[in-house]
């Protein structure tokens, strides 16, 4: 078949006219491929995009995506564009040489859009936060909230996407989801970006369960300068609950009345030489009070696998990788002491009174550590205790010494002298139990959550008669049992996760800086990939240079690689990084389509067959 028959313009036009007159199909093709439709499409798409960018600027990316970019009508409109592009090329049939550029450009756009569809259907874009301390990971988070329900009949788990960020369920506008295999429904009637679990005190008679009952206080801390108000619960239930760290500024502490005198700890300075081959016989030397800690060096195949273990009869056991200990002082639990490595010898021997290492092989590893009183912290603290009359006393300490003490005022806030923080006593309960409550954090910035908060939904179980169970908050990444009568439906909420066919481990994360500044010049994650067949690969994800697995040129060209690129980082924790993972099998269509568009436009504009110059004038 001759693709480019030589026809004069008149012949071509006559052919088209005859074809249109004789066939309904051709009439439809010509209507769909009309220039009117094309221009309407171009204008509406441009307008929709413009509206979307302003929506994104004044609301959020999620909303713009939900209502425009990823909305069915917009995708449908792009599909109409595809149809228009294809029909317009058909209307020129039989194609002639002068149509080359036109055809290549238009099919290029179609191919590009097909690539996008393939990418959306068969590919994914996810995130993974990994730390060098964690073992290899094999799952990614997809930015797509879902609700998972377990059928009470079969136990099967069903997931439904729930775009909470774009269309948040509200008490007035609840979302109903049918529980599969039953005639029950779940009503999701609230959503909050910040939901948190908070420990609160509830009065309980000590006679009920003395193990659960303990004394405690609830305080409110306020700062006008920071525009903040924090509810804080301190109680004697456990060590963690006794203390609260205020943004690293100061410490709040609940103590026993008997302990109320300030303890001036004796200074500790102790050296321990420990051998991994002979863990029971360390060489210890104390210049002052003994530390009460026993250090042990536990070996591995290589120096980097070594572990340092510290044990105390009071505080239990702590472990660190040796490499970490060699980098700087470690705080020991209790807050009084620090441990610091003085030296490490993989193959220890004494030569003329000096410890030396014979080689880098860990043949007789030895570690010298020093345990000493932490430098007197200048961090101020507030201590609270109750006397036998049930009155709450306070002590304000600075550098370990009491600056001010007395009865905790009940009518006015106590000025703490830390910036402009003030504390008021809300309640004191001599006998209370700790209950965890899931609460919605108000969007009022003054009431910022003190702990870690996560998004959450509130859901209740409904039956077909319209009876409703107790609504419950479900935090992202967790699940709750919703109940109604005897029926229990476990419901989970969170971002969708997707398994990867391999495991990823973060070996090292480095952030080089520009000279003399803290401005990062790059982010480098050294990753180790391992697939189930035992193939491993090490690769680096740098800025603008993603790591790939399984790797290889042809896989890259066909879009069959998983790409790991830098997404975000935590300046406070340089052992952790968040990577974006992308898998896009639509990639070859996209880039071939792109190439066609560029070449097509070039052909269209500059490689026209010789003919009379375009008629330009006031049409």
């Amino acid at each position, binding site marked *: 078949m001759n693709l480019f028959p030589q026809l004069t313009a008149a012949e071509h036009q006559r052919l088209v006219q005859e074809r249109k007159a004789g066939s309904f199909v051709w009439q439809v093709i010509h209507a769909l491929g009309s*220039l009117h439709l*094309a*221009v309407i499409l*171009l*204008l509406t*798409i*441009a307008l929709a*995009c*413009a509206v*979307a*960018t302003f929506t*994104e*600027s004044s609301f959020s*990316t999620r909303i713009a*995506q939900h209502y425009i*970019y990823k909305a069915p009508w917009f995708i449908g409109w792009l599909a109409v564009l595809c149809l228009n592009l294809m029909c317009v090329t058909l209307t020129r049939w039989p194609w002639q040489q002068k149509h080359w550029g036109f055809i290549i450009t238009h099919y290029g756009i179609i191919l590009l859009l097909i*690539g*996008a569809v393939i*990418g959306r259907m068969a590919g994914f*874009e996810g995130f993974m936060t990994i730390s060098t301390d964690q073992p290899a990971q094999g799952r990614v988070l997809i930015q797509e909230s879902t609700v998972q329900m377990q059928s009470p009949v079969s136990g099967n788990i069903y997931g439904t996407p729930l775009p909470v960020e774009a269309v948040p369920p509200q008490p007035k506008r609840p979302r109903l989801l049918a529980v599969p295999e039953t005639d029950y429904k779940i009503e999701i009637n609230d959503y909050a970006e910040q939901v948190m679990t908070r420990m609160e005190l509830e009065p309980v008679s000590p006679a009920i369960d003395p193990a659960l009952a303990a004394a405690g206080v609830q305080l409110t801390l306020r700062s006008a*300068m*920071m*525009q903040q108000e924090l509810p804080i619960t301190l109680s004697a239930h456990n060590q963690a609950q006794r203390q609260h760290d205020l943004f690293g500024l100061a410490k709040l502490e609940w103590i026993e009345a008997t302990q109320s005198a300030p303890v001036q700890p004796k200074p500790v300075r102790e050296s321990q030489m420990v051998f991994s081959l002979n863990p029971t016989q360390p060489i210890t030397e104390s210049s002052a009070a003994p530390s009460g800690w026993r250090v042990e060096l536990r070996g591995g195949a290589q120096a980097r696998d070594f572990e340092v273990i510290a044990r105390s009869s009071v505080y239990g056991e702590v472990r660190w990788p040796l490499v970490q200990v060699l980098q700087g002082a470690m705080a020991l639990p209790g807050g009084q002491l620090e441990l610091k490595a003085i030296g490490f010898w993989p193959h220890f021997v004494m030569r003329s009174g000096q410890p030396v290492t014979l080689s880098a092989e860990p043949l007789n590893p030895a570690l010298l550590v020093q345990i000493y009183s932490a430098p007197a912290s200048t961090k101020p603290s507030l201590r609270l205790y109750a006397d036998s009359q049930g009155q709450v006393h306070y002590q304000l300490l600075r550098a370990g010494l009491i600056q001010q003490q007395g009865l905790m005022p009940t009518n006015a806030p106590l000025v703490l002298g830390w910036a402009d923080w003030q504390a008021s006593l809300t309640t004191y309960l001599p006998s209370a139990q700790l209950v965890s409550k899931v609460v919605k954090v108000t969007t009022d*910035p003054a009431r*910022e959550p003190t702990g870690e908060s996560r998004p959450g939904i509130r859901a209740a179980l409904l039956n077909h008669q319209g009876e409703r169970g107790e609504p419950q908050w479900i935090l992202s990444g967790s699940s709750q049992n919703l109940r109604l009568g005897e029926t229990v439906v476990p419901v989970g909420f969170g971002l969708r996760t997707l398994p990867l066919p391999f495991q990823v481990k973060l070996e090292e994360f480095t952030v*080089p800086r*520009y*000279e*003399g*500044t803290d*401005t*990062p*010049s*790059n*982010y480098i994650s050294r990753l180790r990939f391992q697939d189930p067949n035992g193939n491993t690969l090490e690769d680096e994800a740098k*800025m*603008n*240079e*993603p790591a790939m697995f399984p790797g290889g040129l042809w896989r890259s060209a066909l879009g069959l690689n998983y*790409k790991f*690129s830098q997404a975000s980082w935590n300046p406070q924790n340089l052992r952790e990084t968040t990577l*974006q*993972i*992308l898998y*896009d099998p639509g*990639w070859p269509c*996209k*880039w071939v389509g*792109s190439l066609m*568009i*560029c070449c097509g*436009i*070039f052909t269209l*504009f*500059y490689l026209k067959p010789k003919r009379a110059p*375009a008629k*330009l*004038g*006031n*049409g």
Partner: protein
Amino acid sequence: MRKFLFLGVLLILTTLLPAEVFDDLAIQDRGRKKPFSSFAHEMSLYLSGKSPLTLTDRTLPPLDFVLELWLDGEDLHHQPVILVDYLPLRQKLGLEPSQKRFSYVTLESCAGLEPLQREAANWTRLHPNEKLSPLLREVNNVVSRLATFRGLTEGNLIKIVPHPSSLSGPWTPLPEVQLEPLRANFKKDRRSIWPQIEALIPTLRTQSPSVYPTPAMLALEATYLKSHPWRWAWIAYALGAVLMAATFHWQRGSGYRVGYALVLLGFLFQIYGFVCRIIISGRPPVTNMYESIVWVAFGTVLIALILEAIYRSRYFVLAAAPVAVAALIFTDLQPAVFDRSIQPLVAVLNNNYWLTIHVLTITLSYGAFALALGLGHVALIQLWRGAKEKDLALLYQYNYRALQVGILLLAAGTILGGVWANYSWGRFWDWDPKETWALIALLTYLVILHGRMAGWWGGFGLAVGSVLCFQSVLMAWYGVNFVLGAGLHSYGFGSGGLPYAATFVAMEFLFVASAVWKFRQLQTKRQALL
């Protein structure tokens, strides 16, 4: 290659301009080593928005300003040297609204500043993903100007002692022992420290020869700063265009040739400026608004020169020169809005190859559209002046040529952006505002071309379209960063210049409306004649 360019440029220019002591003194500042003179110029612009800075009793060249701050800053504490550009902020702080610069003492004692600074800090802490209001952003600017002022008077920012070994290690200020005699001499006689500094430089250099920048490198930057290539470029463009316009009916041939040569000369000045910036920063010169405006001016002239070489019509130069001259003068006059200092790249852009190709293509397409805009103006003005149908048709034809270049480059650049994004972040297209607006601009130009093909409008429609569609380019280029301020291209965000942009857009619409009115009138007249 870099060395080659470098030597050539150096040979031509270092001989022309005498080097001064402070050109040879290196300083580490904001992630880069630079000549002290360049540092002084940047600091003066940053603190006061002026270089040189005029006070009530004297004019301070940037070097004198920074040296005085460093060695004898007492008087300058009381002089109005710190820029508070934003009028609502001046009103809020109870400062004199008609004044733009205030003394350090005034601002430090200004009771309203600290609560606003806290408000800004709280806002950033509580809403880490949202941008600050213009007022709070300006508060942060003023606060960091105050900190910079302190850093200069206390000497912490004058980091001129090189790191002993590491190329990227932090430099330190001059030790007190060496600083004290400098201060004493400076107070007696300002010029007396010149020989002291001259003697100091070899000591600093020999302390860490591998770290200290080479004299050639320092000279290049100092020369770049003093030679004002952008200013010479616009002067040459303006002269060339005026000459071409004046010789339509008189001395046609020689007027055209000299005009073309002048424009080419201006173009060479721009090339020199870009080469300097590339060598100094080691990256392509299109990473902030200042550089991109200058580059678009360059692109406009480049495409005009090429098309001029083909068509020999002089309209391309007449259309391109006003655009380029306006862009270059505009950036020259607004140093506080368009930061001209050369700074290291944000990590996101840290990939020169793709950055070069993608950004240069996109901005060249803006240049082509700017040329089309200029030609559209020329055509519509000619229409107003009652030019002949034949001449107009020719102008429309040129306009079409410029649009073609723009569309090809914009399509290619947008797609290359996708390729870069796919390579570096994985995804090809994510409806980021910058890429979306590039697409919108492309779509609007496509509408113009398709409409002409359908016969709905002709050359006049193209001219009107070139002016109207350029507003979408303006949105993609300036609006996304300065108006929307959202999305992944956030490294380019800034503020300011909005009133100018809004006035420009409004005037363009008025111009188009008047041209359409004129066109209608002409058509009815023609129909009446028939």
